[in-house]
């Protein structure tokens, strides 16, 4: 990150602070106000979209740690979300645990499952690892259907509405706030993890696993840790999503969602925490655009135009980014800002 001139750090504590300049603070404050006032002025549909974007951001943070920072591309992320979702559903419904207890447990369970499927990462990487995560998704999917006494099989299972100090979280507005608080938390945690010991080890592994090993990074342990952290985020997102629909079903976590999550990272910028947010918003809005203009194309093409477009638009965006701006929006933004700060030079 380049800082504008006139910003000095007088001790190391200042130098490692997350927010450094006044404009940075203002920007953050405006963003927070915007995010937290959405329910006041937006329609229910916008609110629903914002909630879903929030949940996706949490999940994408996890994938970003795993893929963007540790370099292990996963196409099984929606499988791990499924684990979290079902864990929450089972805990809330069958064990009667409160939502607040079940949500972290959902994250942990997803993390542990992530570790199990991350085990092959000791021996394989790159494309082979992608394949292992594909296998993970389908195996999880199948297991969920198999243990129907626990999961309700294909029918899925309803989840009771949680109470928060007497307020029903089923209320979409309150739930939106819950999700957004978690999004902010997840963003801070993701950012912090990346600038400390574990995060540096992850990037070291991504950039140069041989050197990392020689420098004392335990590859095996850190790869599994990356899987664990990434999947904890996925599990929490899965739990939130299940709670949002008050229902758990395997079809809420389709395989292609993992692809979109990856696409969000590409568009936002692999490895960048703020990029995650840009990417998620961009793809979700593109999909929303497809749903919007789809019906008007229905007459011209066919009634399914919306679905076709909601596949084509984000995919084409991903392709264009891969070709023309492989470092994503966050990098473009950075360059624009550098240019702007250096203006008129």
């Amino acid at each position, binding site marked *: 990150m380049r800082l504008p001139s006139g910003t000095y750090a007088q001790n190391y504590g200042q130098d490692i602070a997350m927010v450094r300049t006044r404009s940075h603070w203002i920007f953050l404050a405006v963003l927070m106000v915007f995010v937290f006032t959405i329910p006041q002025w937006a329609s229910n549909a916008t609110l629903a979209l914002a909630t879903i974007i929030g949940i996706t951001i949490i999940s994408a943070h996890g994938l970003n740690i795993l893929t963007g920072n540790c370099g292990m591309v996963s196409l099984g992320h929606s499988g791990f979300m499924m684990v979290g979702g079902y864990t929450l559903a089972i805990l809330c419904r069958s064990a009667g645990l409160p939502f607040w207890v079940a949500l972290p447990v959902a994250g942990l369970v997803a993390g542990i499952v992530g570790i199990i499927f991350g085990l092959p990462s000791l021996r394989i990487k790159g494309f082979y690892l992608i*394949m292992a995560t594909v296998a993970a998704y389908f195996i999880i999917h199948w297991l969920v259907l198999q243990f129907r006494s626990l999961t309700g099989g294909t029918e899925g299972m309803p989840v009771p509405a949680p109470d928060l100090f007497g307020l029903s979280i089923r209320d979409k507005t309150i739930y939106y706030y819950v999700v957004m608080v978690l999004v902010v938390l997840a963003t801070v945690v993701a950012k912090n993890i990346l600038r400390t010991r574990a995060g540096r080890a992850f990037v070291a592994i991504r950039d140069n696993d041989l050197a990392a090993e020689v420098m004392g990074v335990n590859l095996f342990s850190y790869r599994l840790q990356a899987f664990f952290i990434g999947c904890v985020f996925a599990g929490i997102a899965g739990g939130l999503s299940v709670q949002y629909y008050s229902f758990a079903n395997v079809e809420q976590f389709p395989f292609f969602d993992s692809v979109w999550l990856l696409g969000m990272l590409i568009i936002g910028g692999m490895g960048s925490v703020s990029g995650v947010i840009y990417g998620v918003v961009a793809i979700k809005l593109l999909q929303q655009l497809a749903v919007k203009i789809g019906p008007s194309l229905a007459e011209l093409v066919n009634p399914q135009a919306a679905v*076709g477009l909601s596949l*084509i638009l984000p995919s084409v965006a*991903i392709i264009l980014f891969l070709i023309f701006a492989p470092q994503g929006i966050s990098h473009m933004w950075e360059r624009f800002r550098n240019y702007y700060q250096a203006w008129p030079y």
Partner: protein
Amino acid sequence: MTFFLQLFITGLALGMMYALIAIGFVIIFKCSQAFNIASGQIVMLGAYLGYTFLMPLALPVWAAILIAIAVGVMMGLVIERLTIRPLLGQPPLPIVLMTIALAGVIDGVAILGWGGEYQAYHDRLPAITLHLGAVSVPPSSVLALIVSVVLVAILMFVFRFTKIGLAMRATAEDEQVTRSLGIRATTVYALVWVIACVVGIVGGILLGGVSGASPPLSDIGLKALAVVILGGLDSIEGAIVGGVILGILENLAAGYLDPLMPSGGGLANVFPFIIMLIVLIFKPHGLFGLKRIERV
């Protein structure tokens, strides 16, 4: 015993289908080190093309196949030019991501073009049924068998004995060297994509004759990836052997293990992935894949 044989033979036939799709993947990987995740989507598109040519247009089968090959050639060229060539020289990962996005585009196109509806053309392909004692082989599988044998023979011939085959093998070894010697690597890449698309589309027409055309058909591409992992990423022989092994195992599992499962099983859909995971852990380079030494 008949039951077992039936499962075995059907598995063999299914495996040939897998092998056909896997070959397309292997050719691309071998020559350009690119992983084509969209191979299933190409197959799915092939099935829809088969439907269009055979049902609404009611073309004879040979004409349909010929036009489909022409479409495959076009498609290969377009895909290579628009999506793969801009990434030339980059590490393999962006290309994987590119083909994933490509999968999304092809899925979308199929939905825009055919409405994502189920379309069948069961009775248009020739029905050759083989009877081996009490066991009968499904006609589509016999066709797949014939097509893949012919294809492999052609490919082997091209690879071994023609000039372009030499160029392909050379490019597979070292792109820079071959380019510096005046061989157009881009031509070779375009060619491998053309081959892969043609194989995929022809495979799709055959497959569509069995299952009909519908967007979820592209899932078979993921199963073919399991085949490729089992056989070894860069081995055509591996693709065939892996396909057959996986087809048989999948079928045996569905026949013998499914009834033992608490809720009905449905192992057929997940078995290739279980095998893939096992292979990845214990023998990541597959049965026939080359193992490359990593040097510091």
